[in-house]
């Protein structure tokens, strides 16, 4: 099975972000960056699938400036075989990303594309679904389990009312949710080995995709502050507070 995994470099999810005072965006200069957590689950899922079905190749792709190489190396250290970075310094919209990935799929002809369900910077949750549309492939989003069957995959998805399992023929697009697996931390020898794995760098222009943004970001602002609260002394006081709140609701 040939698997393509798309990964994104984002502000590390443990960093408390700061909105630039001029409203132009979120400060990323000098901030710790790492692989988007959902992408890590996608890489881990690819490695586990390859272990299960054998005879697989995992290609990992990231779109971004030079430092995006770091997240490709992380994926290679986790067990991916080969990397590709599409060089661009521009911040691309999800639609443009999906179009670029569709071109990569046309070149690489994978059986499966795995992605994280969303990136924790823009929280879009678009690219997997868009890519599936452009390829006319079936999709299974928000996966919490992936099991290979004879001719395809069984994917369990987390939905609003619980979980559902779909039988998915290949080729297909699957996006990873957080309960899919526990991503491995690559041991040092794997990290060293990753540096010798093939990693191609391709200029974004190679793919002939119109990258013109469709939306204009007017401003970015911090959310409104919450006023400081108070400490309640005992259960009786707390119950009275809640009772008052409930009475207010009933009065509406």
């Amino acid at each position, binding site marked *: 099975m040939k698997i393509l995994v798309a990964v994104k470099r984002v502000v590390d999810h443990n960093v408390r972000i700061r909105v630039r005072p001029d409203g132009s965006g979120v400060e990323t200069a000098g901030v710790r960056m790492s692989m988007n957590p959902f992408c890590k689950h996608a890489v881990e899922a690819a490695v586990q699938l390859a272990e299960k079905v054998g005879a697989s190749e995992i290609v990992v792709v990231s779109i971004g400036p030079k430092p995006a190489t770091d997240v490709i190396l992380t994926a290679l250290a986790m067990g991916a075989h080969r990397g590709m970075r599409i060089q661009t310094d521009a911040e691309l919209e999800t639609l443009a990303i999906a179009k670029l990935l569709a071109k990569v799929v046309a070149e690489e002809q994978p059986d499966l594309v795995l992605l994280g369900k969303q990136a924790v910077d823009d929280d879009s*949750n678009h690219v997997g679904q868009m890519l599936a549309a452009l390829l006319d492939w079936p999709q299974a989003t928000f996966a919490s389990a992936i099991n290979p069957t004879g001719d395809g995959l069984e994917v369990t998805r987390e939905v609003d009312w619980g979980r559902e399992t779909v039988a998915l023929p290949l080729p297909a697009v699957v996006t990873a949710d957080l309960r899919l697996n526990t991503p491995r931390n690559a041991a040092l020898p794997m990290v060293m080995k990753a540096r010798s794995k093939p990693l191609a760098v391709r200029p974004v222009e190679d793919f002939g995709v119109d990258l013109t943004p469709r939306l204009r970001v007017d401003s970015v602002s911090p959310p409104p502050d919450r006023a400081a609260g108070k400490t309640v002394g005992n259960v009786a006081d707390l119950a009275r507070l809640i009772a008052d*709140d409930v009475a207010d609701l009933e009065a509406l």
Partner: protein
Amino acid sequence: MALDGARLLGVNRVLVGQGADLAAGLPDSIVPLLAGLAPQYTYIVAAAAAAGRDLMPRLAAKLDLMPITDVVSIEAPNRFVRPIYAGNALQTVVSDQKQNLLTLRASAFRPTGLGDAAPIEPLPHAPVASAARIIAAHRTESDSPDLSTAQIVVGGGVSVGSAEGFKLIEQLAKTLGAAVGATRAAVDAGYAPNDWQVGQTGKIIAPDLYIAVGISGALQHLAGIQGAKRIIAINSDPEAPLSKMADAVLVGDLFTIVPALIAELDRLGVKR
């Protein structure tokens, strides 16, 4: 569903697509139908829930539109506000596209009222069979209100300690006619079902009252409750992020406080 939709104020017409191909809710059969309808509309809108998140980006790519998702405020016909970075920043975007495809956070908008019944019309379509097939569904059975739209939500964290412990959270919720929520850690630990998860990757809620029990307040969870009007925390740690952001906090052991609170609410005659 069609009847409910037809009675909503502002709805002019309800189109009903029927057929086995659509019933399964699989995006590769539904999106072609929606894509066929789309050219007649300026705005194509869905709720930012699991179905909308699954379908709308696929539809957008089919229509070559850049979707604007998780919208929390519409400031002008082409100007929308959406949270980014787990709600730690708000992004205002302007679209000059001829059509706009949106998903809206239900918790950020007031529901519309009821009006005259709009006509319901069948929507003939050529069925498109999905390549995928649903083979199992695990529906979480619950008689509590819907988490995404509940007025009161009681949430439990990993300190609740067990699925058994969550019964206590459910009991408090029942007293208040509230929905039950959980943190990612509590769901990961198997104490609560996945569809109770509130946070960046779970459900986004904006109840009038959120009671957080034994929840320290990971960024991931706070992202899901920022719209709550009032927050009450019950926590052993007064320095926990959630204790600090709450409107009121009672510091102590949840296993002592919650049963006493239920008894006290009963004594005060609180019942919804």
